[in-house]
């Protein structure tokens, strides 16, 4: 209960800054958009697919892309499982003084779905391209912060989402290591279609 109280206080503190500076309100409304950062994270995988100075390097990059895609699936499974155990209400449903600057979501607050997916993808990318990966992980946290600022998520949703994302990434690495032969087959068939 103590953690929940601290979480609510942090959320109220961050959300308290909203509605004062128009520039920040617009910036966070753009950042929290359902398409912008998730699309950027998926485009990072698209970049990785073609990166590599030769075919061997590119093959390794493509293996990381497959790992990244599987991390999206794992992150969705983790979110579904988490929702079975804890259906947390949104801050604007439980806290009276929340200033909501976003639409009313209907899904549970914990964990923050886009943070889980984006951090999972960028966690995987970090092992192939450190710059894109670390920048992406910071961007995922920034997305989480903006969600708190707009009154859509609690701080614990973001922290939990980030950790779940990393967990999804780890699961996907494990999964790929078990099915490496199958992955090799996929990558070989992709070559036939000229998608490399």
């Amino acid at each position, binding site marked *: 209960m103590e953690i929940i109280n601290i979480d609510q206080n942090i959320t109220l503190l961050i959300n308290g800054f909203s509605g004062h500076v*128009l520039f920040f309100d617009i910036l966070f409304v753009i950042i929290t958009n*359902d398409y*912008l950062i998730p*699309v950027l994270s998926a485009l990072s995988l*698209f*970049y990785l697919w*073609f*990166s590599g100075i030769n075919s061997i390097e590119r093959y390794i990059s493509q293996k990381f892309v497959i790992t990244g895609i599987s991390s999206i699936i794992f992150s969705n499974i983790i979110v579904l499982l988490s929702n079975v155990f804890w259906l947390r209400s949104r801050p604007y449903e439980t806290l009276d003084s929340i200033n909501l*600057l976003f639409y009313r979501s*209907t899904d549970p607050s914990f964990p923050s779905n886009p943070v889980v997916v984006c951090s999972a993808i960028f966690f995987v990318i970090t092992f192939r391209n450190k710059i894109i990966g670390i920048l992406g992980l910071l961007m995922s946290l920034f997305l989480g912060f903006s969600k708190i600022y707009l009154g859509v998520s609690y701080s614990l949703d973001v922290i939990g989402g980030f950790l779940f994302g990393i967990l999804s990434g780890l699961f996907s690495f494990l999964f790929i290591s078990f099915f490496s032969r199958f992955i090799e087959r996929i990558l070989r068939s992709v070559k036939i279609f000229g998608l490399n």
Partner: protein
Amino acid sequence: MLMVVMMGIGILQLVSYSYRIQNLWLTSNSSINLYCGIILLISGPVVFFLLPIIYIDEKISLLEFFSLRNINDIDGGIAGFQQSIYFCLSLLISLLLCKLSSFITKKFSN
């Protein structure tokens, strides 16, 4: 979809510039391709957020204007699964456009 296609072409130009993948070049000049890539990558989200200016006729605040692109799934937004299909389709279109452009460029330069 337009945003993803634009950004997809932008990404392909950046990666083809970095790793000299000539069959993805928009033009025969690599520097032009790089600038095109950067411009497309930035203009994709800009077009996405500013496009509602065409059909908005009532007076709304700036915050409301930028919130127009934030639509809940149940109120006409695109659901996760649908999003991923549109995304893959858009990337395929951007890849085909780049390959076509590179093919035409090669054909005319020879």
